[in-house]
């Protein structure tokens, strides 16, 4: 199927953002050289090298933790809570002022469509700072006792799928509650975190309150294992989450983990099919499927299977895959060659195991990392594509006959991050939502996020919540 309409390109200008040829680590309010061998960050849509990034070693992490400890003891801890809040309000405002710059930079470094970075990632990041700013002087009302205390230094490691937004989810609650931060951005997407360092400087945030140490797995490990870190927060794969839980075992460190998922998106026969199809698309193709809570397992009631799949395929045929900076683009680039290889491997396994692969006719750019939106039908619950997190634009379709079967199949996973329900029947929504073992349930919608709304997993999707009053608990010691 050829595309329905021809669109002229509508590229967002990249001239709004200056990418420096190289970046250092942000430690104690200054950019400093890293001691490791620098790494390169590339634009996944073109494979163009964007910049050279410092790599933090154990010694660098140690300096960052010392700076964070000093800032915690001398400045940020003793500061009037209302003033801490004001710094966060400043940061929220600066993020809004420089929103376009952040959006373009995020799309350049990550490969996500500008429409998403502009309309979702950056506004939500600003909203997280604005929301948590207000908490700073109201913590006595958070349900954690009259005088809850910060842990101290928070070591935070974040993924590449929402680089700035995950930074906001981690840094905003940590600072609002009086902790200081050493943050390790993802290896492939460090640029917006480094631009955020500049925001901290513009906000006159005291040196050492936020430290950003770039690097790969070794740098992250050094942050997690540093003995003067009091609190560890990690978002990423379940595999790395396990190793972090092992590493902090037996220490005094407090841990929260936001890990992988394999969410069921359940479509009942009475669902409004057109809306459900939009929701399915949003659920799995939003952000190229690089979403831990992606609706990657579609469970369709048997009686409407053919209708839903036909409609879904028609809709997918209109999705535009290509230049992330084009405002018409729906699906951008896969973040890295490594991730692309994993998506290809799991898709090939899906076919080899007997599922049926469908992809629209879709012209992909010659350079860069691309994968077309993909739907597997005839998937059995035992197939790897029904069990493993693909973290790409790949949907596995299974069917069910009864609500009990839908719940059993939805819960048949070691993960438990999110789920979706599509039906017009209110009582059914509430009954099914009760029985799904998942931390976030979207009914007749999908992939909605808000700083006031707690987010996090059941089972091997991790523990702890981010957002809302619940999210504060991760960064505070209860008082009695």
């Amino acid at each position, binding site marked *: 199927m050829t595309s329905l309409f021809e669109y002229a390109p509508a590229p967002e200008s990249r001239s709004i953002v200056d990418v420096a040829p190289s970046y250092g680590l942000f430690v104690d309010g200054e950019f400093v050289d890293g001691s490791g061998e620098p790494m390169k960050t590339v634009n996944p849509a073109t494979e163009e090298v964007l910049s050279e990034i410092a790599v933090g070693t154990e010694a660098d992490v140690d300096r960052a933790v010392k700076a964070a400890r000093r800032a915690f003891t001398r400045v940020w801890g003793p500061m009037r809570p209302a003033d801490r809040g004001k710094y966060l309000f400043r940061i929220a405002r600066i993020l809004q002022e420089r929103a376009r710059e952040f959006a373009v930079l995020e799309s350049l470094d990550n490969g996500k469509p500008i429409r998403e970075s502009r309309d979702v990632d950056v506004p939500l990041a600003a909203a997280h700072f604005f929301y948590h700013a207000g908490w700073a002087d109201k913590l006595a009302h958070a349900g954690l006792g009259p005088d809850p205390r910060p842990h101290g230094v928070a070591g935070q490691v974040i993924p590449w799928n929402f680089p700035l937004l995950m930074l906001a989810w981690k840094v905003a609650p940590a600072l609002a509650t009086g902790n200081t931060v050493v943050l390790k951005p993802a290896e492939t997407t460090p640029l917006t975190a480094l631009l955020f360092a500049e925001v901290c400087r513009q906000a006159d945030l005291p040196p050492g309150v936020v430290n950003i140490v770039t690097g790969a797995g070794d740098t992250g490990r050094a942050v997690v294992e540093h003995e003067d870190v009091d609190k560890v927060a990690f978002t990423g794969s379940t595999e790395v989450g396990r190793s972090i839980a092992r590493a902090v*075992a037996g220490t005094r460190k407090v841990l929260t983990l936001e890990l992988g998922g394999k969410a069921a998106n359940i479509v009942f026969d009475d669902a409004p099919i057109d809306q459900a199809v939009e929701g399915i698309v949003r659920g799995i193709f939003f952000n190229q499927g690089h979403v831990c809570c992606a609706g990657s397992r579609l469970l369709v009631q048997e009686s409407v299977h053919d209708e839903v799949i036909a409609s879904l395929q028609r809709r997918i045929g209109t999705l535009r895959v290509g230049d992330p900076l084009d405002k018409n683009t729906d699906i951008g680039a896969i973040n890295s060659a490594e991730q692309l290889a994993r998506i290809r491997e799991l898709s090939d396994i899906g076919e080899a195991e007997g599922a049926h692969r469908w992809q629209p006719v879709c012209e992909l750019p010659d350079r860069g990392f691309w994968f077309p939106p993909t739907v597997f039908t005839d998937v059995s619950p035992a197939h790897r594509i029904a069990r493993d997190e693909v973290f790409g634009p790949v949907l596995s379709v299974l069917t069910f006959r009864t609500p009990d079967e839908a719940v059993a199949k939805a819960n048949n996973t070691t993960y438990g991050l999110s789920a979706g329900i599509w039906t017009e029947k209110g009582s059914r929504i509430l009954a099914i939502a009760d029985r799904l073992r998942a931390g976030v349930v979207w009914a007749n919608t999908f992939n909605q996020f808000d700083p006031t*709304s707690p987010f996090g997993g059941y089972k091997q999707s991790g523990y702890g919540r981010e957002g809302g009053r619940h999210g504060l608990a991760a960064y505070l010691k209860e008082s009695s």
Partner: protein
Amino acid sequence: MPDRLAVRKTYKLYVNGAFPRSESGRTYEVTDARGAFLANAAHASRKDARDAVVAARGAFGKWSRATAYNRGQVLYRVAEVMEGRHAQFCEEVAAGEGLSAGRARVVVDAAIDRWVWYAGWTDKLASVLGSANPVAGPFFDFSLPEPTGVVAVLAPQRSSLLGLVSVLAPVLAGGNTAVVVTSRERPLPAVTLGEVLATSDVPGGVVNLLTGDAAEIGPWLAEHDDVDAIDLTGAPAGRALELERLAAGSIKRVLRPPAEEPDWTADPGTGRMTRFLETKTVWHPKGV
């Protein structure tokens, strides 16, 4: 000279609502605080622990979906039935912990009252811990606490009844099911508590009590993929690190052991309940 020879009790495990011996056939000698023989307790094995996890998983659906009011009444019923066995608990606690009769009475009173305290919590948790979230969009968005699932509990080694109830009741109040490894040296009040549970409307499998050695069974529970959380309060000295590492394999929620066994008569607070609760957030659009 007593005019009648006493009928002694056989102390067994409490698994899935029944009182089996250990499948291993093993027992170990339990003595009072002065070293005099009290009983041969069942020495639970790895297989017993695995059976207990199966029972706890099987019971989770019904118990977790029972209404909060119903769970509260069941926990209150435990207090009622314990009260009727007050004298027996006093004797066992006094013997096992070496307490005076008066001190044992205080401990048993507190243990019964603890069930009452937690019975009253079941239908308050959602309103205290839940929230309606004012999201920036046309959605109704709410968050509610839900039980974590099957919780393995290594019960305190010293406080054989009050400590046990203090770690078990909060797990149940939230709607979890439990596999408990009792105090090794002082297991007898736990078995009697099992008899109370079996006659107090607590569905079989909701609580499973294994007498034996936490050092032996703890690792199996810590690494069991169908256990969702583990309370290490009674972990044997020096073993907590190993158990927490094993628990990381399936991302279990871990309650680390305190530096030393706490004063169980203190106000328990809500921390032991919240530790074994998840938060579920549900979104629905608003529209006409």
